């Protein structure tokens, strides 16, 4: 802090008084000169001149005396004034020093102490007081003011700390509300709890405003949830009736197709096709709404029927070419879902390819399961569209809120794929369009546990797969190598009693020539020679063998044409 330095007191020159001899000498000189003048003067004029000189001398002497007197008085006055000035200068210097002390030492000390928390009253006593009473007097109110200000600052700081604490508490409460309480509330509400239950179970925030906000949010959300659930339930219910109606219409149409002749057959087929498309639409909505598919099959459905059942549900079914020589069957519980999934994908492929181009569907059997590829030759999907489609079929978008009105099909595909553990992936097609690859896990395939390893061998042994009839005896032979199959197969051997008596005589079934019956008879007789010894078996395998044998016999009853 710069302190103005007190100006150095100027030296005051005191005028010296004239020495007292000077007027006296001048008066004496004047007297001498007057005497000389009187002496020199002619006698007649001597008296007049003497009088004049005397008068002049007296005047001079009086004037000189008065001047000396004045001078002396003035000198005294000047001396007194100079002393006073000096004392004033000294005083000014002292005041300046006191001020400097006040500014430099006292006030900072006072401020420091006040800041350190001492009271305003005790503060000024501590620092060395300025020596001068005036600065001290000036310092007192200043320290008091500073002390007051310091006290105000402390109060303000305390208030600010209080406010900050409250703010932090509020923020923490708000964080807790948004981070913990609301998610918990939403989870409970989604789980079906009512607003009251959810609120009662939740930890309520202390702030009444937050409490009110939480309650209104929870009530509003519960209402929305209830409305959504009600809408969904009502839709599913109504749709299930529409589905049932469509299914019964299909059954009636099928019956009419049998009953009526060629003249109305085409019309019936058209109606059938339209009803099937209607079934696809209602099934799609019903699945989205959490309902079920319209049909449920209690038997495995062969792949050809699966594909045809799927392709029959789309408008452009004549543009779809099916390439399948697979004899695999899809388990009954999954057949409808699989058909719907394939129908949606075929519909997608047909809709996004030129109306003159064909959509090709290929079926391959792999060890990982069954692969169905649907390829169109339309435009390549853009990357974004491909990504959207992948996301849709990934089954992540379970929420109806993500639905777009025109993209329902792929969402249903995602739902079904997730339900049956199928994988659906898109890739650019070698034909120029988009290919969809659907992989069915082996669990979906009927009797996949026993049939899957046999498929390649079966294909090699039988280059012409003729599904129901030809493979059966061969499958029987192979099955016989499995645990438990042997005895059941022999006892239930369908061919034996059908084509030959126990004694070995040929039996001709109705509708068959004797030669054909004889040919059929040779088969089962040759087979036992190749059979290995029956291994140990358990009850499950025994039952499975029994079931297979029964099925084989049933199939033979239906399709038997002789070997």
């Amino acid at each position, binding site marked *: 802090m710069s302190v103005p330095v007190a100006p150095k007191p100027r030296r005051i020159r005191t005028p010296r008084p004239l020495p007292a001899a000077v007027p006296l000498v001048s008066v004496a000189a004047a007297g001498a000169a007057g005497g000389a003048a009187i002496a020199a003067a002619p006698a007649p004029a001597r008296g007049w001149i003497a009088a004049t000189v005397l008068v002049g001398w007296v005047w001079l002497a009086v004037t000189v005396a008065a001047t000396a007197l004045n001078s002396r008085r003035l000198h005294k006055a000047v001396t007194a004034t100079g002393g006073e000035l000096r004392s004033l200068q000294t005083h000014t210097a002292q005041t300046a020093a006191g001020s400097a002390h006040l500014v430099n030492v006292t006030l900072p000390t006072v401020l420091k102490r006040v800041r350190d928390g001492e009271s305003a009253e005790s503060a000024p006593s501590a620092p060395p007081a300025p020596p001068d009473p005036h600065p001290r007097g000036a310092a007192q109110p200043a320290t008091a003011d500073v002390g007051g200000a310091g006290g105000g600052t402390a109060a303000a700081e305390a208030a600010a700390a209080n406010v900050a604490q409250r703010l932090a508490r509020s923020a923490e409460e708000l964080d807790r509300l948004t981070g913990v309480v609301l998610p918990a509330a939403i989870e409970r509400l989604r789980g079906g709890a009512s607003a009251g239950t959810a609120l009662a179970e939740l930890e309520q925030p202390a702030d009444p405003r937050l409490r009110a906000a939480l309650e209104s949010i929870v009530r509003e959300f519960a209402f929305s949830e209830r409305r959504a659930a009600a809408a969904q339930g009502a839709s599913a219910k109504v749709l299930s009736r529409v589905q049932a109606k469509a299914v019964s219409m*299909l059954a009636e149409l099928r019956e009419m*197709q049998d009953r009526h*002749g*060629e003249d109305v057959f085409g019309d019936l*087929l058209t109606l059938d096709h339209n009803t099937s498309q209607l079934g696809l639409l209602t099934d799609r909505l019903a699945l989205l709404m959490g309902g079920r598919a319209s049909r*449920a099959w209690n038997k495995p459905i062969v792949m050809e029927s699966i594909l045809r*059942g799927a392709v*029959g549900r789309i408008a452009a079914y004549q543009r779809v070419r099916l390439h399948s020589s697979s004899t695999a069957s899809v388990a009954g519980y999954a057949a409808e879902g699989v058909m719907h999934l394939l129908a949606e994908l075929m519909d997608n492929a047909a809709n996004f390819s030129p109306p003159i181009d064909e959509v090709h569907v290929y079926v391959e059997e792999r060890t990982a399961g069954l692969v169905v590829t649907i390829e169109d030759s339309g435009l390549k999907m853009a990357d974004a569209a491909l990504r959207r489609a992948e996301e849709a079929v990934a089954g992540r978008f379970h929420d109806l809120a993500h639905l777009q009105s025109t993209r329902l099909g792929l969402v249903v595909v995602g739902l079904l794929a997730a339900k049956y553990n199928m994988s659906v992936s898109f890739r650019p097609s070698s034909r120029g369009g988009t290919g969809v690859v659907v992989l069915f896990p082996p669990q979906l395939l009927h009797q996949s546990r026993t049939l899957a390893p046999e498929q390649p061998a079966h294909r090699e042994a039988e280059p012409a797969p003729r599904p129901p009839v030809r493979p059966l005896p061969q499958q029987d032979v192979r099955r016989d190598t499995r645990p438990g199959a042997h005895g059941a197969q022999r006892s239930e051997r369908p061919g034996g009693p059908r084509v030959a008596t126990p004694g070995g005589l040929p039996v001709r079934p109705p509708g068959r020539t004797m030669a054909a019956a004889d040919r059929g008879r040779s088969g089962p007789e040759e087979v036992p020679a190749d059979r290995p010894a029956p291994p140990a078996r358990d009850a499950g395998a025994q039952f499975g063998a029994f079931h297979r044998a029964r099925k084989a016999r049933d199939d033979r009853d239906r399709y038997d044409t002789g070997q």
Partner: protein
Amino acid sequence: MTRRPVDLGDPDRLYTVTGGRSRADDEKFDLVTLVVSECRPSPGMQSEHVRILELCERPIAVVEISAELRLPVTVVRILLGDLLSTGRITARHPRAGRSLVDLPDSSLLEEVLLGLRNL
């Protein structure tokens, strides 16, 4: 939600079996036309074609095929038309109406008998 009865039918619709056709191209097949397969089924064929070829290993009437396949006659005729156009089956009408006039004359039969005896 009421449980629906389990479906017992087939998922195939008839228009998918016929590929959308509702009428046979030719009028070659009537209910009693006899059909015989000329070859064995090949892989990748439609299952109905396969079954027809298997049924027709011996001559069989169209109506019988229809009954065996449980398909309307119209559909069977369309399918048979497919097979006929690719030469996998042959069809002929039963010759029920021919009797004495169509039989070979007795002199020919006698010659055959003589030849057989001379074997």
